[in-house]
Structure formats: structure tokens, C-alpha cells
């Protein structure tokens, strides 16, 4: 029973990471109808930036927040300079741009910081007051950080005028322009936020899986599965999907299939969802007239 609860909580902790990544994917999908294949590599790059800031001697939370800020700005810059020119181009062009970004971020990270595996510190000391025999401090802290971030995003989107404008621009860009919303800047903002979310996810998972340029490849796959499970156009679904995928992956890996096949779970989920219920649990069924 103890082991089961431990696996459950570990699943929730990784689930929080998947939820964050899935949310970033859904945010970009909602406003552009495109899936950002480079999301994982961007998160990895953000984590390296955080690592580098720590090497320069900054305290953990300063480095953490600075890395998030840099990622936010970087995300906006990427949207304005690289993605805006291909906004009206065919989908395949956009996909190739995303894959290009993926490869570039991966290679540049390896070039700057080498491929040796590095340790990334956790801000939650293992002897903290909230650590128990079941739940490691990092697991609890990680879940808390991701939940806080998700709460902040929820508040931003529901309660602020800019959040409302972003939702409107994603739903109906033509009408959004007619009320004076600068839709292309809203897209840039969406990218910035997605990059910031990815940075948080990366820095929370790095202490567990260790930092190297290929850190996020598998995790992004879980993020996809989570986003699809929740419904690719539904932010709440992304979060719920993330936690479900995290728990299922961990429990299956511990009791049913062993750790080698854990990533297969993600792939099976992706294929299965697309075959059986492409709209996911909460997504909208899109009907188009031909």
C-alpha cells in the first residue's frame, strides 16, 4: 500500500510537469491551430539558461525567475521574427519551421554546454518539513509549483482584460481586430507565455532526470499524450490529462510493464486517442462543411 501511494504521488509530480507542457501546447494550438513540436527543446534550453545563471552564482529563485523572464521574451521574439513570416503559409511549412527550431535548439544547447549529463539542483531540500517517507520534498514542491503556476495562468486568463483579449483573439481573430485588439501581438504573447511555462516545467523535472540536451524528448511525448487526452483545444483538459498520464504511466511502469516500456505508454495513448476519440475527454468535435 505504501509503495502504491508513493508511485501515485510520484505520478502526480511528473503529471504536473506533463500538465504544464500540455498547457503550453494547447495555448499555442488554440491561437494558431498548430502544434509546437519544438516546445520540449525550448523548455530544455530554458533549463540550461537557468543552470548557467546558477553557475554565475545567482541564488536559486533569482535564477529561476530570470530564466522564466528570458524564456518569455525569447518566445515572443521567436514568434515575431520566425513564425510571423510563415503565418499564412501552408501547414507543412509551419511544421518544418517547428522541426527546424527543435533541431536548432537541441544542437545549440549541446554545442554551448556539451552533452555531458549535469545535475540540476532542487530548491526543495530533502529534509524539508513537508517531506515524508511517502512523498519526497521535490515531488511535493514540484506539484505545488506547477499548481501555483496553473492558478496564476487561470487568474490571468479569466480575470484580466489582457487575458480576455487573448482568449478572444484565439477564438475569433477577425472579430478581435474589429474591437481593436492587436491580434498578432496576442499571438506573440501566447508564445511568450508558452515558453515561460516550458521553462518552469524543465526546471522542475531536471533534478529528477538530470540535465542533458535530450532531456525533454521523451517528456514532450507525454505532454502530447496529455494534451490529446484532455482535448487539444481545452486548457483545463490539458491539465487534467497531464495528471492522468503521469499517474497512469507511473503505475503501469511500476506494476504492469516495467520501466523500459514506459514511453510506449505515451505512444499507445497518442495513437489510441486519435483513433478512438480524437477530440479527447473535453475537446470540441470539429465539424467542417465540405
Amino acid at each position, binding site marked *: 500500500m505504501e509503495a502504491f501511494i508513493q508511485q501515485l504521488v510520484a505520478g502526480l509530480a511528473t503529471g504536473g510537469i506533463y500538465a504544464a507542457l500540455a498547457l503550453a501546447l494547447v495555448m499555442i494550438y488554440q491561437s494558431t491551430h498548430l502544434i509546437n513540436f519544438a516546445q520540449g527543446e525550448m523548455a530544455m534550453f530554458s533549463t540550461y539558461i537557468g543552470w548557467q545563471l546558477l553557475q554565475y552564482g545567482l541564488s536559486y529563485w533569482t535564477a529561476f525567475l530570470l530564466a522564466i523572464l528570458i524564456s518569455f521574451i525569447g518566445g515572443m521574439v521567436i514568434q515575431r521574427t520566425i513564425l510571423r513570416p510563415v503565418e499564412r503559409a501552408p501547414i507543412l511549412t509551419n511544421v518544418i519551421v517547428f522541426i527546424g527550431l527543435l533541431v536548432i535548439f537541441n544542437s545549440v544547447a549541446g554545442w554551448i554546454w556539451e552533452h555531458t549529463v549535469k545535475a540540476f539542483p532542487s530548491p526543495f531540500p530533502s529534509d524539508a518539513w513537508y517531506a515524508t517517507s511517502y512523498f519526497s520534498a521535490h515531488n511535493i514542491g514540484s506539484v505545488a509549483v506547477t499548481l501555483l503556476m496553473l492558478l496564476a495562468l487561470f487568474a490571468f486568463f479569466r480575470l484580466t482584460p489582457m487575458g480576455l483579449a487573448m482568449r478572444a483573439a484565439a477564438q*475569433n481573430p477577425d472579430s478581435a481586430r*474589429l474591437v*481593436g485588439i492587436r*491580434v498578432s501581438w496576442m499571438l506573440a504573447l501566447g508564445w511568450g507565455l508558452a515558453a515561460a511555462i516550458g521553462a518552469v516545467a524543465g526546471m522542475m523535472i531536471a533534478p529528477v532526470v538530470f540535465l542533458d540536451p535530450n532531456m525533454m524528448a521523451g517528456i514532450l511525448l507525454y505532454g502530447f499524450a496529455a494534451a490529446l487526452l484532455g482535448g487539444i483545444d481545452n486548457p483545463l483538459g490539458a491539465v487534467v490529462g497531464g495528471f492522468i498520464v503521469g499517474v497512469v504511466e507511473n503505475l503501469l511502469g511500476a506494476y504492469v510493464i516495467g520501466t523500459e516500456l514506459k514511453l510506449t505508454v505515451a505512444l499507445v495513448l497518442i495513437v489510441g486517442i486519435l483513433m478512438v476519440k480524437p477530440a479527447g475527454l473535453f475537446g470540441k468535435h470539429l465539424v467542417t462543411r465540405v
Partner: protein
Amino acid sequence: MSRLLEVRNLDASYGSTKVLFDIAFGLEEGGITAILGANGAGKTTTLRALCQICRTSGSIQLGGKELVGMATEDVVRLGVAHVPDGRGTFTGVSVEENLRLGAYARRDKRGVAEDIERMYERFPRLRERRNQQAGTLSGGEQQMLAISRALMLRPRLLLLDEPSFGLAPLIVAEIFEIMRRINTEDKVSMLLVEQNASLALDLADNAYLLETGKVVVSGTSEQIKNDETVRKAYLGF
């Protein structure tokens, strides 16, 4: 009275297809002008051209300022509110959020709150549904919401694209009566695109008739209503 809107030599295209050919029309400050014509005549395109949603060449002067070449968001900030065909409601957010979005370009919070109250007084049905998702409203209610959202901008010029479309006659009469009051009480100038010519001519002071992208008849509403040949040939009544 000075002319609020002066359009000259206006061409408009979607991609490589030209839809409007050298049209000219105008609108007095405080007046209501109707643009009439059959399906495909270019009425909706005219309103889109004013908002710079499609490619245009020529001259569109709003209070002396040239609109051709501006971004849509900037045209809106000059005080042009467009109620598009199909209403353009943000269906995924609530009624009140739609109204807030209408006031997005404004900075005066108290004025916005006052205006939301005024919209609810004018359209009590919207107040009842203020937190409901806008997509669940009936056609008539969505039209009221669309007009209110446009008015939240406190526009100088209100563009209305087929406000009667798909609505029951009683609702249409209600909405047109409210539009008349908006014009006289709030002094909002209006450009009205309508297929229902008799309805439009009752409300508007002047009218322009479009056929395949060109202006074929223009004059005051009285003149056009009393001209039998025009009525029979173009307006069907």
C-alpha cells in the same frame, strides 16, 4: 453639416479578384446612409473595405483622415465600429465579456462600466443573460449583443452589415427602432447595409444602390422610394 465619411475611387479585391470598381459615396455627420443591392453586389465588401479588412485602393476619408493603408485595429481606434454579417459574436465567452471586449480600445474604466449599464437598460434581455455564454443566445439576442458591443466603443461611425438577417419581423422592428434611437439620442452616424430595402429606406436619410461592384443609383431615401422604375428594377417592391 460636414461630411463625416467621404469615399472616392474605391476599388476592393479579395486576392486577385476585384469586387468593387471605383465606387464613391459619403455620409453626413449624424446621418444614416443605406447601401442596398442584391446578393453579391459588393455591399459587405464595402464595409470590409472601410475597416481595411480586404485589399483596397482609392480614398476613404473619415473626418479628413485617410483610412486606406491603415491596419484594421487602428481604423477601429479612430472610432469606427463594425457589426459584421453573421454578428461576429465571441461565442465562447459570456455576454458581459463580449461587452468588455467592445470597449477594449478605451481607457476610461468608469465610462466603460456606465456604458455597460446603459446597454443593459436599452436591452434588458442582455442583462438577464449577462453571465451566459454568448453562443447560447438566440439570433435576435446575439444581434442586440453585437450592436451593443459595437456601441461600447463610443464610435463616431457605426457600420451595420445586414442587421435584419435571419431574424423574425417583430425582432427586426424592435432592433430598427432602437437603431433609430441610437442615432437621434447618442448622435451616432450609421452606414447600413441591408438586403431588405424598404426597411432600410425607412430608417436611412440617403441610400446608394450597388450592382456588381458599382454604384448605379444614389439619392435621398424619399427620392428612391418614390422612383418606381428604380424600385421595380432593383429593389423588388
